[in-house]
């Protein structure tokens, strides 16, 4: 169902799966996890998979950041492609305004 669902479900994963969650501390995925869990709570596991798909996907994205990583890779590869295809000169390959190290 979710990326974070264990590959093999067993009594052991049922026991330990709930120990670590995004509810610890004040992480960025806290609300999204709670929303997804509330939705699953309301609809149950089978209907919840359909009804809460968006919320679960959002939580997956927040915790694993697949889309953001894919975006980064796509942009990086596009830049390399343009360079190899000759659309970008060597001096022009990378941005002229790189981020300053103290800003992140």
């Amino acid at each position, binding site marked *: 169902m979710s990326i974070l669902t264990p590959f093999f479900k067993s009594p052991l994963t049922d026991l330990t799966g709930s120990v670590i969650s995004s509810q610890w501390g004040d992480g*960025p995925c806290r609300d999204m996890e709670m929303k997804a869990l509330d939705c699953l709570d309301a609809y149950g596991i089978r209907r919840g998979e359909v009804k809460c798909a968006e919320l679960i996907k959002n939580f997956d994205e927040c915790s694993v950041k697949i*889309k953001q990583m894919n*975006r980064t890779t*796509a*942009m990086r590869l596009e*830049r390399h492609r343009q360079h190899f295809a000759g659309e970008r000169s060597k001096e022009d390959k*990378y941005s002229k305004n790189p981020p*300053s190290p103290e*800003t*992140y």
Partner: protein
Amino acid sequence: MAQIRQDLPPAGGYGPINYKRMPIKPLLSGAALIGGYLGITAGSLYLYYLNYKSVFNRELEARGASLALFPMLLAERDRAYLKQLRINREEERELMKNVPGWKVGTWYGEPIYLGGDPNKFVDPRIQEYYVHANYKEMAKRCEMSLWS
């Protein structure tokens, strides 16, 4: 048979055994030692007090300056961050203009977070923040902890 001769004290007996105590002449009396100790301790404690006060004041001033500057530095950093994100967005628009189906800030038109406000700010990962720059620029930030 040989003549036997016993060892005997010298005539007039042995001299007296010198067992009388001979103390060294003290440089300072006990009262002077204790008084001197107390006096020097009091004097150095006064000097310590002066030094403590000056160090405390210096630290207080530095702490106050740091507390006063921190919000401004934080705001400046946030401002620089947002400005850089704007630069990155324009850079992305320029870079991906020939890629079919690509929309800026999304994964081929699919927003990062579904539902909700599409204009909601999403923090980039550091790799995405530095995606348009040379890796050397990212190394400056990522290896900062190794230099400090």
